[in-house]
Structure formats: C-alpha cells, structure tokens
C-alpha cells in the first residue's frame, strides 16, 4: 500500500475515534446497543465499518470475477451471462409420482432437477427389507432397481436437463442407473450433466446415511472421480456439503471449515490412488446452507471461494483455473423454518435466498414454507420457485457482478471468516486430517456444542425467532399439507416383485459374483456396477455384496 493511502487511512481512523467519542459512551451496557439483536456465529460485528477496518489488497484479496482468488465470483460476468440454476429438491412416494412432480416443476420454469431419495434407498436396502418397513417413499422417492429409475425420468430427455442426486453411500450405483437410463434414451454418457452428492464424510459427521467404513467409501468415491473423468466430462462427481453440517447445528465458520477440510481429504485420496489433480479437480462441487444472518452468509460464500482457491493453488499445486474455482449449490436453511406461524417462513426463505445470490451461488433450492410440518405440497413448492424467479427477474441485484464487493462490512466479515476457517483447517490437519478427526469425534463435538448453545440462546431470549420466543400467536394448523399414502409401500413391493420375476436371474447372479471379486481387488467398480444395474440387479443386492466385502460402519456414540 502506498504512503498516501496509509496517511488517508490513518486520518480516517482518527476521525472515526473522534466520532465515536462524540456519540457513544464507552460502556456498551449503558447504551441501548446491548439489545442483543441477531447473533449467529462467533464473529463479532462492529458498530460501524469504515476503510480503516480493512486489511485489504484489492488485487490479491479480491481481484476480478473469474480470476484468482475468485472472491468476487467464479464467472467474469456472473448472472449477467446466465442466472443460477433453479433446482428444487423433490421426491416422494413412487417413481411415477415423483416423475409427475418433476414434469410439473420443469413446466413452471425450473431449470434443473434434484432428486430426493427415501432413506431406504440412501442406506442401500430394497423396499422389501425388514428394516425398510414404514420408511418406503417417505422422505423421498423409493428406487430399488433400474425399472424405478426408468419411471423416474420418463419423458425427460437427459441430455437437456441437469440432474442432481442427493445420494451418498450408494452414489456410484445410482449414477450407474442414471447412465443406463440415458443409454436407453439413446444418449451418450458424455452428454450427461448433473451431480451426485457422493460426500460420505459429512454423513459420518452430520447426516447419518452411511453404509460402509471410511476406507472403502473413499475408494468408491475415487472410483467415480476416475470413471467420470474419462466418460462423463460434464458431471459433478461430488458435492462436498456444508449444508447438513449447518443443519446439524454448526455455526457459519464450522460449516465452511469442516466442508473444506473434507474437500482436502477427497483430493488427497484421489491423489493417493494416482489421479492427476487437474484431471478430477474441475468437477468437484460444493453445497452450502443459506442461514438467517444475511451479511454473514454473504461473506461466508465469498470467504469459502477464497480459501478453496488458495488450498488448491498452494497446497495441491493445481494449474487449471477450473480446479481452483469453488462452484456451489445453496439451499436455504431448513432448520430455521418454524411450524408456528409458518407463513413467516416465506420471508425467511426469500432473505436467505437473496444472500445466496449476493454470495454468488451457481444453483439454488428455496425451501417451501410448510416444510417444518410436512414434505412440501405442490402449491408451496411452486411459491418457493417463484421466490427465486422474483429475485432473478425483479430485484435488479443480478445486473452487476458481486454488488456488495467493497462494502466495508462485507469485506471485513469475509476476512474474519477466512481467518477463523484457516484456524479450524490447521486444527484438523494437526489431528491427522478430516477422516481421522471424525474418528476422534472432533467435528461432531464441535457441532453438538454449537447446536446446544444455539438452543439455549433461544431459550434465554438471546436469540429471537419470530413466532417462537417473541410475537407468539395461537393458530390453527394449516390445511392441505402433503401426505404420503401408506399404499406406496405395498405398490413399491409389488413393483419389486415384478422385477424379480421378469429379469434373467442367472445374469444377475453372475454379475454379483464378478462385482464381489472386483470389490476384493483394487479395480474400478464402475464398470461392474453398470453391468449389474443393466440386468436389473437391485440396489439392495448390490449393497449386500459390498457390505459383505467392505463391512459396515458403526457410529461411535460420541454423546
């Protein structure tokens, strides 16, 4: 920084001190500022931000959009070129029902699909498994075999939509099914675009749908990295997720830090099996939460981009600019939705979505107002989509890139967040990396502590939630909520029975034997999984073989 500028900043700091002494008493408790408005993380907000608050070097800390360190965004023209993908997470009941919802959302102007699978599918069981009873089709769509996947994407040309799938432990298997559905539509894998979540580490830490232990799970992930690098160049092979870490109760700093530490573990695992950094890193993607503290969230997205770019450049020596870019999906924070006065959720979602767009998201899911009560109805899902369309087309914030860049407050918060994130990443490195730290329960304990503090702040009125601990009202519960009929389970079991009857059993068994052998070796499993799903081998059968070879993860009870 040159001397003139230093003098200017010194003068501003002096003037600011004068202004403060003129208007404020030293003791905050005697002023009316101890009101404890919105608190979200460990970051401290200053009364006023000014140029002297910052330690900012424009060219190295911000630079221009599309340039390292990508603080201002990953594309040079951001939303002036193209809006973010409006991608509403949907799925319930049978594949046919969800297909109907998908077609409806696409007709209403949604620009990408996002599949919610039921827990049975996410944990690798068939719908007729004893453990599946009562759960089939409840929190997402039930998929047992290729037959269900064909029904799910009926009349949807897979070369014309991008599809995101929230699937982790069995992600490679669902990807294989998707590839085969496309094959049957006459579409080559190279034409497919979309995302599998494929992020097992946050499952151990926060979300709970793990199957196998860490080591074989990491192998399935690097197998997909390698396979996609060769065959699906437009596929996001992983969506490294902070969303669920935040939902489990972390603060903003922990959300970013634990996510990027997971990212480091995935990159290292891929390098360890011999992949080249610039071969797979451009297809890594991320997923964050848009919580309620508007300014802090905007700063969070910007800080996450900056830290990741530095990690990839300095630590992993990536050369391809695409390897350095943190591209991310955002979902508004489900945990902030209230069952009380639920219409207020419409406002919460809109503000949260606005922060995601001001933070430069690549795709967005806006929650429906009724989600603290049930899965979203068609009407509430439509309103959530309309919220995004209003931001895109009416607010004008998309007319310029990174409109809050240079805001003293946002830039300072971005700096503060970055510092706090590095401190956690260093700590996790010290513990031996993300996998080891999870085994030690480090992240789980940090999240648990934050979650409890958050709840106590609400109960002690330090954190105000409209309609929960202030402005309460007695209301009748809303009508017209979505209900998944118990018939779904029976229907799904019948469909599965038909699959068992119609397929070639010998081919199925031979494929499973080949898969088992491959799983015992170090071969890439993707070709074997493709082979199995083509023969209508079920998800449960495939996972049973892998459970036999890999074993099952058991959660250490850290509580």
């Amino acid at each position, binding site marked *: 920084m040159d001397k003139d500028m230093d003098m200017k900043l010194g003068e501003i700091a002096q003037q600011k001190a004068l202004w403060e002494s003129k208007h404020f008493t030293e003791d905050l408790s005697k002023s009316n500022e101890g009101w404890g408005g919105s608190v979200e993380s460990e970051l401290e907000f200053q009364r006023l931000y000014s140029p002297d608050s910052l330690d900012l070097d424009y060219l190295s800390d911000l630079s221009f959009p599309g340039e390292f360190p990508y603080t201002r965004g990953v594309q040079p023209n951001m939303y002036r070129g193209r809006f973010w993908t409006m991608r509403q997470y949907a799925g319930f009941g049978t594949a046919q029902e969800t297909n109907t919802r998908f077609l409806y959302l696409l007709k209403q102007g949604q620009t990408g699909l996002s599949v919610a699978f039921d*827990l*049975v599918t*996410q*944990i690798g069981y068939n719908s007729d498994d004893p*453990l*599946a*009873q*009562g*759960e089939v089709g*409840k*929190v997402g769509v039930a998929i047992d075999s290729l037959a269900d996947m064909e029904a799910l994407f009926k009349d949807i040309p897979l070369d014309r939509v991008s599809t995101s799938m929230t699937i982790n432990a069995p992600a490679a298997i669902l990807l294989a099914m998707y590839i085969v559905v496309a094959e049957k539509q006459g579409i080559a894998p190279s034409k497919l675009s979309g995302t599998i979540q494929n992020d097992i580490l946050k*499952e151990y830490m926060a*979300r*709970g*749908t793990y199957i196998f232990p860490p080591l074989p799970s990491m192998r399935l992930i690097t197998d997909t990295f390698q396979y996609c690098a060769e065959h699906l160049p437009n596929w996001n092979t992983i969506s490294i997720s902070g969303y669920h870490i935040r*939902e*489990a*109760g972390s603060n903003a700093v922990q959300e970013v830090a634990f996510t990027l530490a997971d990212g480091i573990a995935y990159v290292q695992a891929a390098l360890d099996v011999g992949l080249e950094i610039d071969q797979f890193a451009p297809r890594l993607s991320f997923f964050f939460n848009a919580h309620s503290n508007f300014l802090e969230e905007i700063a969070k997205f910007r800080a996450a981009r900056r830290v990741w770019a530095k990690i990839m450049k300095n630590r992993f020596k990536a050369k391809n600019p695409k390897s350095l870019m943190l591209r991310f999906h955002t979902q508004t924070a489900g*945990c902030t*939705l*209230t*069952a*009380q006065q639920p219409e207020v959720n419409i406002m919460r979602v809109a503000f949260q979505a606005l922060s995601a767009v001001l933070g430069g998201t690549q795709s967005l899911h806006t929650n429906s107002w009724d989600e*603290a*009560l*049930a*899965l979203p109805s068609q009407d509430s899902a439509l309103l959530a989509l309309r919220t995004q369309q209003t931001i895109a087309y009416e607010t004008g914030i998309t007319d310029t890139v990174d409109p809050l860049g240079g805001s003293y407050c946002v830039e300072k918060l971005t700096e503060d967040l970055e510092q706090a994130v590095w401190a956690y990443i260093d700590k996790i490195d010290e513990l031996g990396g993300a996998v080891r730290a999870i085994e030690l329960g480090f992240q789980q304990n940090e999240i*648990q502590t934050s*979650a*409890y503090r958050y*709840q106590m702040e*609400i*109960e002690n009125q330090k954190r105000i*939630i409209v309609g*929960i*601990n202030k402005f309460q009202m007695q209301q009748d*519960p809303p009508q017209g*909520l979505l*209900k*998944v009929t*118990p018939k779904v389970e029976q229907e799904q079991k019948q469909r599965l029975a038909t699959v068992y009857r119609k397929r070639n059993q010998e081919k199925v068994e031979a494929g499973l034997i080949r898969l088992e052998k491959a799983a015992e070796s170090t071969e890439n499993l993707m070709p074997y999984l493709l082979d199995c799903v083509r023969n209508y081998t079920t998800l449960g059968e495939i996972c049973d073989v892998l459970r036999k070879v890999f074993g099952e993860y058991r*959660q250490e*009870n850290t*509580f």
Partner: protein
Amino acid sequence: MEKGQRIRVLIGKVGLDGHDRGAKVIAQALRDAGMEVIYTGLRQTPDQIVEAAIQEDVQIIGISILSGAHNYLLPKIFELLAREGAQDIQVIVGGVIPEDDKAFLKEAGVAEIFGTGTSTGDIVNFIKQI
C-alpha cells in the same frame, strides 16, 4: 416420580432417520436438569429401543423421529413394551409429527408429542410431572 430418585431417560433414534440434532440437544438439556440420560445413537429398531430401556431401567423413553415412519415404528414399540410387561415406561415423542397423526399416536400410548419449536424447559417440566 418419587422424591429423591434420579429420573432415568432413554433418548432413542428409531428407524433409518439420521437427524440427531434434536435428540442430542434434548439429551443434553435433560442431563443439565439432573436426569440420567442414555442416548442410543442412530438406526435403532423398536426391539433394540425396548431392550435398552429395560436393561437401563429407565422410566421414560424419548423417541426422536423426523422421517415420517412414526405410525409404523411407534406402535411396534408399545407392542414390545407390553410383551415385556414394561408398560409402566412412559414414551414421549419429538420431531416432525403431522397434526393428523397425533390422535392415532396418543391412542397407541404416546404420553406427549413435542413438535419443532418446543423449549427444552417444557420437556423437562413434563417429565418431572409424570
């Protein structure tokens, strides 16, 4: 509850549901209120829940469920409690339970249902009154 006796509670996650933020927060709050709390961890079957409750000699089972499988899994728990002659153990439920299902669950034997937005203090008070 008899005076002087420390209240013992089992907090359980039943079924495949992985949401444990609420369960852990409640467990911690009950502990802070002086109760003995056993937390089961994820993915427990109704059998495992009932077995643990009897083994740990708890007076209260708190089930956390957000997966929508409550109408199937909770009656199973009552069936098993009855079979083991342990109907004196009270069962409370927290999570996302649609209004329409509440009467059915109360009928099945649930002592109280605590939805989202409940203060942990309300749950502590309820348990102390049982």
